[in-house]
């Protein structure tokens, strides 16, 4: 199955790759981690302390539901963090 692309306009310019849970994901400069993940159909960003899955919720940096581990730093908000080439993003488990 092809990964979906939910960008509303075909992107021009140079794309790059970053990693999410060991998979390579395409992104464009200026995108947030959350936008690049959702654009390719990934919603499940973390497991909370009660083992439930969580993802983007408020989308504006207020709820901290989208916190994941970015380049080894836990509690990084996917919706507020600009994605960079080669970034390594992991789902956060509990306190990270």
């Amino acid at each position, binding site marked *: 199955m092809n990964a979906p692309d939910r*960008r*509303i*306009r075909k992107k021009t310019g140079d794309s790059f790759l970053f990693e999410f849970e060991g998979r390579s994901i395409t992104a464009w400069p200026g995108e947030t981690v959350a936008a690049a993940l959702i*654009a390719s159909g990934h919603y499940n960003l973390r497991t909370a*302390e009660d083992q439930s899955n969580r993802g983007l*919720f*408020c*989308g*504006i940096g207020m709820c901290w539901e989208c916190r994941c581990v970015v380049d080894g730093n836990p509690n990084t908000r996917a919706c507020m963090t600009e994605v960079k080439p080669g970034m390594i993003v992991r789902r956060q488990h509990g306190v990270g």
Partner: protein
Amino acid sequence: MPLHVVIVGAGPAGMAAAIEARRRGSKVTLLDEMARSGGQIFRQSAIDSELRVGLPSELKRKADLLSGFNAISDQIDYRANHTAYALFEGPELHVSDDNCSEVLKPDVVIIATGVCERAVPFPGWTLPGVVNVGGAQTLLKSQGVKIGERVVIAGSGALPIAVAAQLSKAGVHVVAVAMLYPMRSLLVHPYALWAGRRVVLEGFSYLNVLRQHDILMLSRYVPLRADGSDHVESVQIAQHDGTGRPVPGTEKRVGCDILALNYGFTVNSELAAMAGVDMTYRPEQGGWIPITDQFCRTSCSGVLVAGDSGGLRGAWVAQAEGRIAGAVASRYYDERAVSNLSQEMSQSFKERSRHQSFQKAMQQFLQLPTGVWGWADEETVVCRCECVTQKQIQTAIDNGHTSLNAIKRNTRAGMGWCGGRMCMQNVAAQVSVGKPSEDLQPMTPRPVARPISLQAIRNQTIP
């Protein structure tokens, strides 16, 4: 000596305040935790300057305000990516970016921090793919990304309708829009409709878009549960009985990959609360609201509040009020000059009160009927950060812990990363079922209103 005015929040209120205060000769510092100015409604795209989401009239308002702001932005100290995390008497404002923090001691602080969205808990509302309506909008506006392919929207008020239209226009299949109340109840407020006619016309245009896209509009519907394994796959909705309680036998299951919710707002008033500003509890306006006079002044010397952070008022009021606050701040310690402003700026004062009467009429949609507090079952998580369930909170209440501080101490609800922003109004509603809520005190705000990095605290500059 010109006064030093620090404004927190670069939305319509904060930008208008900055323009006005600068025009009147003040030294202005404007900070916002976002990378770009514009606030929630006029958010700018980070990646595609050609991206246009919204109606032509709205885009024109945005362009006008942004160009007014750009004309002065090099005459002020504008700091993007800066968070204000504490405010004390003085006023003394603590701000930080990722690496450094600083203590500012200006003459006046204007709080223009806006609101965040509110949702009501029900089974499945923590599943990935269940989001806030404005979050879906933000992803579209600032990132040019469709939140999903098949979206169900549930909520109340104007924002769900606007966003449903914006998503449809962008090519998202909006499967259904389930509204708490029928919009026609606005018709009993002819004056308010006239006063808010510009917004009403925008509302009609959005409804028109929904009609053109043949979108299923359901009034008096509520969500019962969201289901899916690691991501929402369907939502069950039902008609309600007028008080928010689902009517048995009316359930429908709708397949979707996103469920977007909005049941009103929570004002970002924690800086005001921390400074000791007198507050009042008004759920339909966004929870704990700082009390202000007509000049945006609070009970705390040197602290003003403008725009939605003073209670949900909409962008028109925010902009007019921002102008007023900017002018008042520049003359803050000259009582006569301040009282003259109501004459001098009568246009802004008039505009504010006209739009406020429309907003008052709109608030009926954000008055949540008591039945909505029965949507959660015992196992439903109410505090998302600390995974505190409805039952745990109820147990604390039954054990006599009826203040929010006591519930927080006993259950950890409100202690997590969001600072209680997402759950406190819902906990307050659970406490006050069947009781008047005016005397409910907010949780005592902690000195760090927003999580900031330890490194930033270590690298602190104090004047």
